[in-house]
């Protein structure tokens, strides 16, 4: 369990440091695989349900979704994430910082129990890495990857806490995540079609920076004297 947690953390760090998108997809796929086998090693026994869940998880997260993302990547013709908001080196450093933060939070949270769960740290770390990726990267594809990592983090944390729900709910959650990322994949295609790029930093047509030109909003609305003429004209 600890080993898997360490591996998860390492893949995340790797993700932060790599500029090549195909590599990043592979990393995430590997992460999906690791998370898929996590329930098997967490010592809950090998019931049929656990096996099905693990299999579904692996198929979805490490095969289907990465495949789709790869297709999207091919179609868009992009290879690298260029000029992220925070450079790759700094990202790795921040990643390490985030790792410490996760450790700190987890240690504070579990101080009553006196145990520090490494997989919980990994969960938090994945969550933060996912957020960090979405925040600092520009390509829509990377953001989708970031979301996947975040989702992995949540899942890992959930497993490490041992808070398991019934089979159906777990399956439902998996399905939801899958559909979500699937949708993102579809939209990646659309983005590529519409914009000829998948850079989300150029997604800023929708903002409130523009001010309306309304007569009622300039201070002169208080002074209506000069408008006498208009009214007389209308009569």
């Amino acid at each position, binding site marked *: 369990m600890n080993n898997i947690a360490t591996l998860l953390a390492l893949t995340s760090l790797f993700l932060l440091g790599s500029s090549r998108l195909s590599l990043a997809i592979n990393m995430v796929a590997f992460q999906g695989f690791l998370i898929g086998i996590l329930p098997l090693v967490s010592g809950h026994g090998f019931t049929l349900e656990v096996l099905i869940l693990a299999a579904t998880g692996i198929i979805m997260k490490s095969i289907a979704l990465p495949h789709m993302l790869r297709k999207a990547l091919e179609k868009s013709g992009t290879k690298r994430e260029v000029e992220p908001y925070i450079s790759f080196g700094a990202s790795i450093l921040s990643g390490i910082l985030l790792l410490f933060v996760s450790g700190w939070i987890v240690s504070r949270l579990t101080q009553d129990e006196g145990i520090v769960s490494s997989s919980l740290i990994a969960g938090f770390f994945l969550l933060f890495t996912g957020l960090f990726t979405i925040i600092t990267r520009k390509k829509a594809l990377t953001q989708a990857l970031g979301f996947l990592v975040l989702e992995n983090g949540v899942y890992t944390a959930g497993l490490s806490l041992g808070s398991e729900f019934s089979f159906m709910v777990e399956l439902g959650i998996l399905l939801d995540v899958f559909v*979500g990322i699937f949708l993102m994949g579809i939209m990646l295609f659309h983005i590529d079609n519409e914009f000829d790029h998948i850079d989300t930093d150029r997604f800023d047509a929708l903002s409130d920076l523009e001010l309306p030109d309304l007569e009622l909003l300039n201070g002169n609305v208080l002074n209506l004297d000069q408008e006498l003429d208009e009214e007389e004209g209308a009569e």
Partner: protein
Amino acid sequence: MSTLWLIILFPILTGIVTLFTDSHKIRKILLIVCSVLHIVFTAFICLGSITPTTESWFCTDALSKIFLSLTSLLYFGASLYALTYLKPDEEGEHVSDFHDLSFLRNKNAVFMGCMQFFLSAMTLSVLSAHFGLQWIGVEATTLASTPLIYHHRNKKSLEAAWKYLIICSVGIALALMGVFFLAMAVPTQVEFFTPRGLSKFAGYLRTDWLQVAFIFILVGYGTKVGFAPMHTWLPDAHSEAPSPASALLSGALLNCALLAILRVYQVCAEVPAVQALALQLFILFGLVSMAISGIFIMHQADYKRMLAYSSVEHMGIMIFAFGLGKAATAAALFHAICHSLVKSSLFMLAGNILSAYQTKKVEKIHGLLRTMPITSVLWLAGFLAITGTPPFGTFMSEFSILKVAVESRNYLFGALYLLFLVLVFVGMLTIFSTMALGKKMPVNSEGQPIGYKDPELRKDGTVYEHPLQYITPIVFLAAALFLGCYIPEPVLQIINEASAILGGKAL
């Protein structure tokens, strides 16, 4: 299998059928049939004829009933409205074209199908008692509504949909984390992972975990509800979505997410320390949301975005009220009802204006009272209703909330609350009076307007308004007006019951 599954599953079925139907007419019929069926089911649930068999998945308490009937009602209104709003299929739009994964080709089929999925998801999230199931429902609403937002298939709607999907997914993922923590807060394995199930362990809940869980869930679902500063997707999505979808998003979806938070609060209320934290955060998020929305409603250039911000504001009002507790809880629930009715009508009316003028810019629209008499009168009435002007129901709730704030000696909060309400009022008044009043459009010799995009004017200088375009707003606004003058006994009873569930007093 509980019969409750039926109400969740049949919209999915009709939705799938819709998705693969080529005839626009049949799709329309399916849409309406689905909504009517849903209303019938809802009526049975509200009357208590359908109840969950076990406690583990669903509950149909007063809270669920309120939000379910709101959802059902708004959905009915929105589908009626969608009948006229959706233009007939364009040439070459076939359903079964799966070419290069670029999603289904037929916009209308996707839209109507997803509406029904959306309904199902919302129903699931409202009815579910199990926190995991509820999470699935809320996430499903996001997934089902993304295609709705992308309906127009242009750059802006794509951008809006992408932002919506990413932000809400992130938020809801955080909420899932919170749900896991919630499970940790219970020392032993629980039989029912539901509010009632957890409440049985009231004395044994672990404060730390519960607090963390609550924060994660509040931030997570709060993103979906649209609390500032997580509301950023909301104006984009609401303004780009087609109006029936905006009406549903604003009137129904936000409520569903709010309900999810309230369900968690039900558990938190069992532990005083966590309850104090929760109430504090409620008030904080409420005031921040109101302030932010006020700022953006002032100087707003786009009337649909203005309505979206107004939703942020009203969610803020409600959560603020929940934070105050006591009678304000009931007031907030009442407010939720009135807000849903009014806001969805306003979005529909905005749709009318948009389809006539083809612009969402406030500054380009003047003298609506001349060109679209019915829409603009309703538009003004909606303005009064949404800003809490008596005798609309919103006034009653807003005033009772203020009274509770003062009663509990939160003078500062009360004053801020009023200040933000004024800010919103002024901003909205500016926009509504610019649009409805003022000079009529200059027209050329043929009576067609000059310098504007091109509403097709008829001889008398007005735009044709289809009855379906305004019948729902009329009914909804009338209902909001009626509720402001008199609350029928069953409604009052159910509100008070729901308020009691949340530890509040009667209205």
